[in-house]
């Protein structure tokens, strides 16, 4: 029945491949920032703000006379580095707490559950703005705040997956064999929930990208003057009349990057899901 509906099974995943190519391009800019955009921070002070098409500045410049194209390419680094760390960090917390809560149950489960409830009762973007704004305004401090705020949903995800595995025969037999709980949790159960966690990792990267650039947009993430898409949007807001591309280019880049990461995440979770059910 199920297999009849899947006519698309053999078709190559065009969308996923395209997304991977776009993401790879952003990744190259992030890693090789100094090579790709060597003049990102150079200021053409005599020029002022210029619109698109001036010789040497394809997309014009911002209020400091910096080239929009180079600045936008250089912004790829803070658009990827922080979100990847946020996703990995909250995955580790989610994996550890979620596994313990799901396997052990009882008081551990209750405490972890209440911690998740508490953080989920507030909109995470709002909480991130408040905490990052009051604690300090560094990029990595903001990243740390986001790890704490993202982890509850990861904890819930892993907890649910572990609770689904625990009553299965292979775990019961492992218990009967007298294998230590730690070994059961991280050697027997963990490999079976890895697919779920990996697919979720990508979705978290996309979400963290949006959250981090939102914070830099409000002036809370990266320091002033740093190449960052959110920061560029904030600066570009005042330049909409002089050089609209100063806001439109980084805006399109944020949307594009978040979308391709989401598409890859969706594709991955569907593929892994299919593999698991096919087993």
């Amino acid at each position, binding site marked *: 029945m199920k297999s009849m509906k899947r006519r698309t099974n053999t078709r190559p995943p065009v969308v996923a491949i395209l997304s991977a190519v776009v993401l790879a391009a952003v990744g190259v800019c992030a890693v090789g920032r100094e090579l790709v955009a060597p003049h990102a921070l150079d200021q053409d002070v005599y020029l002022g703000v210029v619109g698109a098409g001036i010789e040497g500045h394809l997309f014009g410049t911002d209020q400091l006379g910096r080239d929009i194209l180079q600045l936008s390419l250089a912004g790829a680094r803070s658009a990827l580095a922080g979100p990847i760390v946020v996703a990995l960090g909250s995955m580790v917390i989610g994996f550890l707490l979620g596994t313990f809560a799901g396997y052990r149950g009882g008081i551990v489960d209750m405490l972890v559950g209440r911690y998740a409830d508490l953080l989920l*009762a507030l909109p995470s973007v709002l909480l991130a703005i*408040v905490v990052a*704004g009051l604690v300090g305004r560094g990029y990595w401090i903001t990243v740390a705040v986001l790890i704490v705020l993202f982890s509850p949903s990861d904890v819930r995800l892993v907890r649910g997956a572990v609770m689904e595995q625990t009553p299965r025969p292979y775990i019961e037999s492992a218990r009967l064999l007298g294998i230590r709980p730690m070994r059961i949790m991280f050697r027997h159960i963990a490999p079976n929930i890895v697919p779920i966690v990996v697919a979720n990792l990508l979705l978290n990267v996309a979400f963290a990208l949006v959250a981090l*650039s939102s914070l830099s947009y*409000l002036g809370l993430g990266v320091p002033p003057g740093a190449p960052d898409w959110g920061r560029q949007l904030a600066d570009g807001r005042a330049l909409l*009349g002089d050089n609209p591309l100063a806001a439109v280019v980084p*805006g399109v880049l944020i949307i594009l990057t978040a*979308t391709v990461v989401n598409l890859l995440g969706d594709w991955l979770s569907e593929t892994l899901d299919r593999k698991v059910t096919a087993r």
Partner: protein
Amino acid sequence: MSRAVLAFALRRAAATLALLFALSLLVFALLYLAPGDVARNLLGTRNVTPEALARIRELYHLDEPFLAQYWWWLSHAVTGDFGTSIRTGGQVGPLLLDRTGVTAATAGLAFLLSVLAGVPAGIATAVRRGRPLDRAIVAASVAGVGAPGFAVGLILLYVFALGLGWFPVYGTGEGFLDALWHLVLPAVALAFGLGAFVVKLTRAAVIRELDQDYVTFARGRGLSERRVLRLVLRNAAIPIVTSLGLMVAYLFGGTVLIEVTFALPGLGSLVEESVLFKDIPVVQALTLVVALVVSVTALAVDLSYLAIDPRVRTRAVRR
């Protein structure tokens, strides 16, 4: 039966109250989050004299133990007295009330737009699963969910306000119609991500119902597609309606960025201003109010679930 339902409702309400209590402790602790001396932070940029510091310490009971301070703050907060804003020097309560209208109007409009566009689109894609229209809308909704509202907002501003001149650029306008006109672009920007979320949600709910045995059976009996769809929609409505409660939290997060982008004097821009200024009493009040609204909405949704679906009623009570 009804007594058991009542007991469940009361239990759920008590849990919400406990959650709010814990949250209020967290919100009060925000005072200690900012580095440096609390009393100095509360004084802000005003002249710091020893007398002023002593007065602030007395006013905020800062020399008392933490829990006593907390109790003192909470007992005032529940009566709507959140203290004095550092930035404006005025009472926090009236300041909040003053800003609520714009936010409520923008968020309400965005909510309406996203439901009116998202639910039909979600149903349309679900019944055409796998066909071009479905794929196009699903792809668009992935982009919508991933697109931050402020980026969408700036692009809308550029195209429709500056480029085409159809809408005003900034501000709130005067009179009802003009004010509404000013809110269209912010609401659309806010509804973009929300609408995409509604599409995904509706599509998943309708597809889940379409895969049920009763649909196969109804079709086998020769019921018209129209009547089958009516059955499906009634069942799919429940998860859709209850998930709308989640959107309230989403709206509160998004509205900060949208209001800053469009320079609207609402609660969201108040969050931004107060955080940047470290106006802690205002930040505390705002966070507490948002927590209250979000948890009460979640409670209301849970209870309405109970009222809509008799199956949930028996399941919830038996737990």
